[in-house]
Every structure is written in C-alpha cells, then in structure tokens.
C-alpha cells in the first residue's frame, strides 16, 4: 500500500512551440481533496489529458497505488477507476438522466437493457449522497446544476475512486457551490480521492486539503491549505502580487447616459422575462445589475443591446430614442457591449485576431474604401490594440482566434469594445472563467472607463465582483428590479435576501418611473 493513490512523476509534454508540461509531479493521497491551481494555459488541461490517456507524456510516468501503469486511452483510465466531470458536460441532451448515467456501461441481458436494475442503483446512489435528480427527466430540460449532479452520478455509477472535477463551480449559483463543496468533502471522508481543478482561491481554501500550483507548464509547488493564505497562493499562481480590492477614486457623476423606462421584454421564452423595468445609468458611474441567474438579467441585456426586441417601454441613449434601433445604430450612438458568451457572440473563432478586432468597425472609412477592406490599415490598427491592451497570442494579428487562451480572447473583446470610445459600456459577466490576473486587468479597464466620465452597466453573478467594482447596485428578481443599493452601506447577505425574493423595496419602481 502506497502513501499516494495517484502519482504523476516528472511528466513532460511538449507541443510544437510550447512545453505544456515541464517536469510536473503531482501526488494525491487517498481520501484527500487535492486542488490543482493555475492560470489559463498553465498546463492543467494537458496534465489531465495525460492522466486520461488522451496524450502520451514525452517523459515521466504514472503510478496508481504505487504500481506503475500505462494509460493509453480513456478506457484504461476508466478501468483504473478514474472519473472526471468535465468543465463542459459530456451529456446526450435528448436522453434521460438515467440513460446518460448508464451510457457505455449499460447493464444488459443478451443486449436487452436491464433498466430496472440500473434505476435502483442510480436511485440508491443519489439518496446516499444527497444528489437529487429525476432519473426520467430529459437532460435538455434540467438545470445546469442538476446536469452536473448527473455527471457526478456517472462517476459514482462506474465505482470510480478517483474523482476529477474540472472547474466545477464556474456554472453554479452560490448555493449550488456550497452543496458541491459538501458533497466533495463527503466523498473524501469515504476514502475517495478528489482532484479539484480551479482558479478560484476561496473555494480551494474552503474545500481542499492540499494544493498543487502550476505556472506556465511548470510545477511551482504543493502546499497544505491550512499553512497558506489566499495571497500566497495567488502569488504562486501568477508570479507576482495581485491586488484583490479594486482601487477606485471619487468621480463626478455626470449626466444621464442611458435611461430605461417601463421596459418589458420576453426574450427567447414566451413569458415576460423582464417586467416594467426602469433605471438610469449616468456618466462616471458603474451601475451593477445583480441577481441569481435566470431572473431576467440576460433578457434585459439582450433587449438593451438590440439582440432581442423590446415589447414595451422606452430606452434612450444620450437623449436619443433607441428603443427600436438596429444593433449597428446603437453601436453608432455610443453603445459598446462585452457579451456574456464570448464564443457564441463575442468572437468569430475562425477569423484571425485582426479580423475580430475590426468586427464592429470594418465598415468605417478608416478600414475600407468603396467596399474594399484596407488590409494595411486593419493590420496597423490590430497591432496598436494588441500592444495597448497586452493581448498575447502566438502569431500576433494573424493568429487563429480559436487557438488563443480564454483570457486573451476576452482581452481582445474588451480592447475592441473600449477602443470604440463608447458613452455606455455594457459588460456582461466580463470576468467569467478568467484567472485572477485577467480579472484584475478587466476590472481596471472598467474603472478606467468610469474615471473617464463614461457610463458602465455591469451585469454580474459574482457577488464579490458586484461589491468591489460597482458604484450602485440594482438587484433583479423574477424580471423586476427589487432594490437599489450602495455597495458601501450594504452587505452581501443583505443583497442575498433580495436576490432570492425574501425582501423588496416597494418604493423603487415608482421613484424611478417618476424621475
């Protein structure tokens, strides 16, 4: 019996031009929660792919329970009882929960499914661990949190002892995150070993026993979480000191830039997702819209930015009525939009970086004459932005956007939107899925916009971000604004009560509507 259940020793994996893993050693004890921390592109995914047999290491070897093993493909990993919940779930959308869980290991008699047996096992597992799921619900109908429980049940159904969670909290609400943490602790107490991949330091401190930090393909060290601090971990991860609090100076509040009156919008679903919402955003302030996912914030943004129609009400930008304006005209009137989903809306991944940087400006005389794109001007502009906003990529302006790291993709969007010099910057979850270095950078950019007297409308699900960055907070619940807060005088707990609908300020709607 070895001290470690998994040992990855001196793993080196090289790709053309990059050493993704450089002599990394990762040792996990039985029954511990072990965190793997690193920025985007630090080599976490490569290391996990090696463990799963998707890549063969150039050097180094893997031991399970002290025995050297060779993992050539994911089936080998499965046979060694290693299971993983991927960041992007691997579920068949049109199958039921039960069908997804047994997929690949279906209990059968001569090819006939024994669903009853499977169902009993799934139900007993879900009861044992408090992972409540409806086995007959179709996956496309259930929430993201429940989909994650299905993924966890998949691992348990296969009797996996080594459970890997790849950034599991990125898609969850605060309550769901707490539940997940408890479940992970429960697994560890039972003797299962957990590898928790994350770049959220607070979560690692809360749940992990030990933490291994990677930076640029190298192993920086393994520490006990009891003996370290958030600051030290972040220094190990980024290689320098990171400021967690956002530095803001006082600014003059300027004129109203965006005014929304009695807006109703339905979004993709039929119901009224946004109901009779009124608010103003003024120059020199960051107004934050907080709330639990699915309370109409996304629909509000879609309607404001023109991606969806506004059913009723009126929206004015710098005094101009833009209620029915096209997206292009909104952009011309001074609106910039950092979208929620950078792959779906923000970027054309098959375009080069420079083509993406002019995505909203290619039609301006600066970049085209008589319909022909001025390649030289585009290149020059792109090089300027890359330098000014520190966008890192393999080949500069001609890099395939798809090949860039998430943080740099987001920097490219931020650069494009801010460089338009907008009067109003709409930023939707601008730091989602990014590491601390990139988050710090983006927060600074938002504050710089505010300091320049521009209006910033920030929508965020992360309460820390809401409290740190904003000058004023609106909470949305079930499509309505239920309260307005000053971050200096309110608390996270207070906001939470409004977010779940336990409290509301009756006066708010009337006050703004009259103003």
């Amino acid at each position, binding site marked *: 019996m070895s001290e470690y259940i998994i040992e990855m020793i001196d793993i080196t994996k090289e790709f*053309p031009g990059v050493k993704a893993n450089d002599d990394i050693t990762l040792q996990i004890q039985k029954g511990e929660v072990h965190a793997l921390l690193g920025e985007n592109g630090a080599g976490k995914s490569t290391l996990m792919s090696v463990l799963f047999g998707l890549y063969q290491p150039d050097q180094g070897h893997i031991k399970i329970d002290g025995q050297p093993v060779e993992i050539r493909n994911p089936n080998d990993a499965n046979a060694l009882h290693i299971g993983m919940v991927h960041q992007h779930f691997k579920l068949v959308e049109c199958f039921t929960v039960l069908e997804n869980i047994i997929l690949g290991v279906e209990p059968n008699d001569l090819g006939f499914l024994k669903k009853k047996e499977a169902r009993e096992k799934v139900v007993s597992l879900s009861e044992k661990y408090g992972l409540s799921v409806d086995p007959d619900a179709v996956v496309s109908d259930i929430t993201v949190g429940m989909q994650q429980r299905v993924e966890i049940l998949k691992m348990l159904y296969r009797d996996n002892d080594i459970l890997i969670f790849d950034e599991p909290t990125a898609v969850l609400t605060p309550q769901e995150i707490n539940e997940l943490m408890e479940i992970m602790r429960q697994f560890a107490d039972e003797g299962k070993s957990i590898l928790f991949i994350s770049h959220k330091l607070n979560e690692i401190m809360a749940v992990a026993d030990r933490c291994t930090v990677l930076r640029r393909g190298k192993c920086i060290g393994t520490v006990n979480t009891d003996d370290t601090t958030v600051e030290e971990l972040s220094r190990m991860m980024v290689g320098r000191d990171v400021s967690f609090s956002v530095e803001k100076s006082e600014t003059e509040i300027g004129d109203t830039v965006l005014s929304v009156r009695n807006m109703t919008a339905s979004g993709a679903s039929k119901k009224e997702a946004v109901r009779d919402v009124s608010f103003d955003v003024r120059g020199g302030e960051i107004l934050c819209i907080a709330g639990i996912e699915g309370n109409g914030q996304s629909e509000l943004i879609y309607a404001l*930015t023109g*991606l969806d129609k506004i059913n009723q009400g009126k929206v004015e930008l710098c005094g101009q009525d833009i209620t029915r304006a*096209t*997206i*292009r*005209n*909104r*952009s011309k009137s001074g609106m910039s*939009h950092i*979208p929620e989903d950078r792959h*779906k*809306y*923000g*970027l*054309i*991944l*098959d*375009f080069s970086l420079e*083509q993406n940087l002019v*995505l*909203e400006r*290619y*039609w301006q005389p600066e970049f*085209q004459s008589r*319909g*022909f*794109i001025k*390649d030289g001007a585009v290149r020059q502009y792109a090089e300027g932005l890359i330098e000014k906003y520190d966008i890192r990529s393999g080949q500069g302006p001609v890099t395939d956007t798809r090949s860039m790291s998430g943080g740099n993709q987001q920097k490219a969007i931020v650069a494009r939107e801010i460089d338009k010099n907008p009067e109003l910057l709409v930023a939707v979850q601008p730091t989602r899925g990014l590491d601390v270095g990139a988050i710090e950078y983006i927060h600074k950019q938002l504050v710089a916009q505010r300091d320049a007297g521009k209006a910033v409308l920030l929508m965020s699900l992360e309460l820390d971000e809401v409290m740190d960055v904003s000058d004023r907070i609106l909470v949305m619940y079930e499509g309505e604004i239920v309260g307005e807060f000053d971050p200096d005088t309110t608390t996270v707990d207070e906001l939470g009560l409004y977010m779940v609908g336990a409290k509301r300020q009756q006066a708010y709607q009337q006050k703004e509507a009259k103003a």
Partner: protein
Amino acid sequence: MNRIQELFARRGVKSIFASLLSIVIGLFIGLLLLFGFNAPYAVGGFFKILNTGFSSAYNFSKVLYQAAPLILTGLSVGFAFKTGLFNIGASGQYTMGAFFGLVAAIQFQLPWYVAVLAAMIGGAVWGLFPGLFKALFNVNEVITSIMFNWISLFLVNLLLANMPMMLANYWGAANPDRTASVATANSNALIPTLGLDKLLHSDYMNISIFLAIGVAVICYIILNKTTFGYELKACGYNRNASVYAGINAKRNIVLSMVIAGALAGLGGAISYLNGPVQYVIKKEILMMGFNGIPVALLAAANPIGIIFSGFFISYIQIGGNALQPEFSSEIINIIIAAIIYLSAVSLLIKELITRILRKKKKEELEALDQNGEGVAK
C-alpha cells in the same frame, strides 16, 4: 529538406497537398476497380482516363467546354458554403439559367450577352426563394433547394413543351424533344469563340472557360478583399456573433443564395449557348449542378482552387467516357466519389503529414545530438 518542411508547414500548401494525395489514392482505387471489372483491359483503361483529355485538340476542347460550367456550379456551391449554407440547389439554378438563356436566345432572338444576363437572373431567382425561406422562416435551405431542383426541371419541361418556337422541329430539324440548335436559330447568341474553335479544331470551343476563370477570380476578390465578403464569411462562421456585431445576417443569407444561383445560372447559359449542344427534355435532374458539389469540396470552397478542381473533374470525366465499351462510363463517378470521400478526410491526411514531418525533424535532431553537434536547435 528544411525548405520542403517549411513549405509544408504553411496551411494552404498542406491542404493542396492533401487534395492531391486524395486524388492519387482515389485514382488508385479506380485502377483496382478496373481490374475487378475487366482485368485484361484495366491498365489500358486506366491510361485512357489519364491521357484522353490531352490526347487530341478536340478532346481537350471538350475538357474545357465541360470544365467551364463545372467551375461555375462549383463556385455556386462554394460561395454559399462560405456563408454557412449548403446550396444543393445548384442543379435547379443551372436548369433555370439554361432555360432563361435559351429563351432569350431563341424565342426573343437576343444577342449572347443578354442571354447570359437573362440566365444569371433566372438562376438568381431560383436561389432567392431558398434564401428567403432560410432567412425569414429558418427553413433548411437543403430541403427547399432540393424541392426547387425538381420544380425547375418539370417547370422547364412544361414550358418548353408549350413554346413551339423553342423546339428543334420548328427550325427544320426532326426532333421535337429538344430545343433548337442555337447555331441555327440565332447564331448571335452563341458564346463568342474569338478564333479558339479554329485553333483547337472544335466547335465546342469558345471563351466560356475564360469567363469561368474570370468569375472565379472575382469571387475570390469578393470573399477575401471586400467588406461584403467579410460579412458573408462572418455570417457563415458564426451567425450569432455577426448579428451581435450589427451585420444584417438575414440580408446576407439571401444575397449569398442569390449570387450562388446567378453563378449556377451562368453555368447553364454557357453550357447551352454553344454550337453542337441542345437542351433535351428529360425526366432526370441535370447532373451538372450536383457535380458542382465535389468540385467545391475538393477545393475546400476556395474559388481559385475551384478552377483547378473543376478542370480536373472535367478531365477525368472525359477520360471516363472514353472507357466504353470495355467498361461502363459510370466507373468514373465511382472514382470521383472515392476522391471526394478521401478529400473529406483530408483533415486526417493533413494531420498525417504534420506528424510525419514532426517525426522527421525529431529524428534529425536526435541524429545531431548523437553526433554531439546538437547545439543550435
């Protein structure tokens, strides 16, 4: 050695090489088939495929004659493809183009350039409908354009049957099942030859191949150099993001289908505004439009590549026709199909090339290391 490696490291070169490799393997599969069907004639037949096209000026003129509409239908499919649309309706647009062109030439006795323009309008209209359905109601363009293929076929047959002046027997020929020879009915409507027919001793020969190449170059410029092409590609790669950026995606979808239709329609015109060719009233969809699909796929929808792939497909089809009577000429379609399958896996082939190159490089480095000279990597 290093220079070759650097050359292959470039993306475009790699895709060209992958296409060439799939052609070679496809031809080899063809050779095996020939052996399977009629072994004694297999080698001779194979050489017929390879050299018929160049064996005489006349055969070469037929390669060029057929290559022109293939390039245009290939461009039609490829252009729509760049906008994220699969234009399987090139056949119907080609048919409508041929019909509009012939009506302008025979019924209205108009000169060739007007007939060509009419053909492009006919094809464009036939592309417009699937485009509108797609943009406004999100109806899959594959389904509508397949239906429009059949509609065009029977509509054209019905109209021709009721337009006596269009048919050959009106102009003194015996057969009522085909349109009049344009040479007889209105020689002004023939695509100009500029003496090329004399040069190659073939009345198939005219300037249409140069028209097709010119159009391909224009398509290349539109797609790669203009804001319009930028918008089209943006919509093709990611419709949501292009809407977010303020691009009118619906308009671009419709325009892309209209242009694709006009390209196929032009192909129809230059096929039939030609001395020895007549439109025969049949109950089968014209294959020319469908053959545009392999032409576009083999070239990965690159307009310049389509010039070469169109020429190639035409070349081996002419070779295939010469296989008779020892083999049925359909065998060439199997070879083309094999090549297309292989070029569809050209990604894999590309990966293979990359891997071989990398291995070579590694071996070289190791060899250097062993010699103790591996200082400068």
